[in-house]
């Protein structure tokens, strides 16, 4: 399998002098599922933000699909982002739009054809099991359902890579399992998933590759690893 994410000696210093990442080397193959774990302040968020180019590395190279995004021009960033799906802890849905509209919005703003939009939105809502709630508004849904809408939105443009930053952070254990079930389905379709998490139960039960960060460095990288920290 080909490498979709490759980081070579990636460093990140914030303007205030804090070193968030200290020389990260990592490669992720297509179709892999990777947990990124580590205590607060270990650099997980910075790591995640690097992958969808919310942040630029101070030094080093980041290849996504063989393209170095560290020196990507500003005007190319939008086109790059269309190939990366992102899911956040706080869902980031638009409260005044229905479930359907929230997902469609992501396709409308990249000027997808209306007929395609309709077909694709129904398809992804079906995938996350919310087709029947298409006309509901976010505040009529449970947290788990809202997160599933946000996942649907993130994959509607068929990105090869899905990034999730603490996707279960706001959810109770039971709902978290539902989310993991959705991720599993997406992963089975060949999408690479990188998920930063604090959820020890999930990491220990659904075994995948575990990358542990501490002090901005990779301290552990195991296939089928465990969480390894006391919560």
């Amino acid at each position: 399998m080909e490498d979709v994410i490759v980081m070579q000696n990636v460093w990140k210093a914030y303007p205030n002098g804090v070193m968030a990442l200290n020389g990260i080397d990592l490669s992720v193959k297509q179709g892999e599922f990777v947990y990124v774990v580590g205590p607060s302040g270990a650099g997980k968020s910075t790591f995640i933000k690097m992958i969808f180019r919310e942040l630029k590395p101070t030094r080093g190279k980041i290849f996504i699909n063989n393209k170095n995004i560290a020196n990507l021009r500003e005007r190319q960033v939008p086109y790059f982002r269309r190939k990366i799906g992102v899911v956040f802890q706080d869902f980031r849905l638009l409260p005044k739009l229905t479930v359907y509209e929230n997902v469609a919005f992501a396709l409308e703003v990249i000027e997808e054809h209306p007929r395609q939009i309709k077909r694709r939105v129904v398809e992804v809502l079906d995938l996350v099991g919310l087709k029947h709630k298409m006309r509901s508004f976010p505040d009529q849904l449970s947290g788990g359902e809202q997160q599933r809408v946000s996942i649907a939105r993130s994959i509607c443009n068929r990105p090869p890579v899905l990034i999730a930053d603490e996707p279960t952070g706001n959810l109770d254990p039971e709902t978290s399992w539902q989310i993991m079930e959705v991720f599993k389905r997406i992963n089975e379709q060949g999408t690479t998933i990188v998920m930063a998490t604090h959820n020890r139960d999930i990491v220990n039960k659904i075994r995948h590759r575990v990358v542990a960060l501490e002090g901005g460095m990779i301290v552990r990288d195991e296939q089928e690893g465990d969480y390894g920290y006391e919560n």
Partner: protein
Amino acid sequence: MAMKIRTLKRHVNESFKSLGRNGWMTFASVSAVTVSLLLVGLFLMVMFNLNKIAGDIESDVEVRVYLDQSITKTQQKTLEQELQKIPNVQSVRFQSKKEGLDSLLESLGNDKQSFTDLQKENPLPNAFILKTKKPEQTIGVANTVKDYQNVTDVRYGKGTVEKLFRFIRIARNVGIVLIIGLLFTSVFLIANTIKLTIVARRREIEIMKLVGATNAFVRWPYFIEGLVMGVLGSIIPVIVLMVVYRFAYYNLGGNLQQMFIRLIPYQTMTLNLSLLLIGIGALIGVWGSMNSVRKFLKI
């Protein structure tokens, strides 16, 4: 940039939705633009005309050099040559006392009957009429010629020209300061209104950027909003100024014409001024809105 009609429709829709949602702020910004453009328009209307009048007078500025009655033919010839040698003098023309009287009587029009005495014994001296290359040079030329031999008096439109130029200069400076102040206020108000609508849609912009919308795509609705506010703000000023100038031109214009002052024709003035005001309005609006969008795009 080629944009799909569907996309353009969406942008227009979005901007009008937001203008409506922030109705009062929109109203305030449009009013500010209206007031500014009204004053700008009035000022420009006056300035354009003053400039034209000054130009008319300027092209007509001459220096009259009155000659001593006892001057001989040779002396007169020499003087004429000397006058022609003055650097800024463009032309020298001789006007006999007879011609001088005729043109004076001409300008008096119907009152000339009461001056029949003058025709019996013409009190006017012979004169040279000089034209300078530039209107500002009349004063200098007049001062030079004053000291020449056989010259009794030198006249030029001293009072009017000097005063008019001074007035135009002051009016221009005061007006420009005032206008810049007003325009900046309008820009600021529009920027503020747009900022408000952006804050309300901050999350939307964030999501747009995350899913890969281009900056241009995000910017368009705000661009349209600014443009609409600016152009809306120019409507009332354009109408008011058309009415005001119509009144001024057809009522005042007649009286002024008797004083040999011609205003800029109604159609020329209103057409140019309207286009200018709409243009300024659009510029203010777009500038204000683009200013406030910029920093929200850095995601």
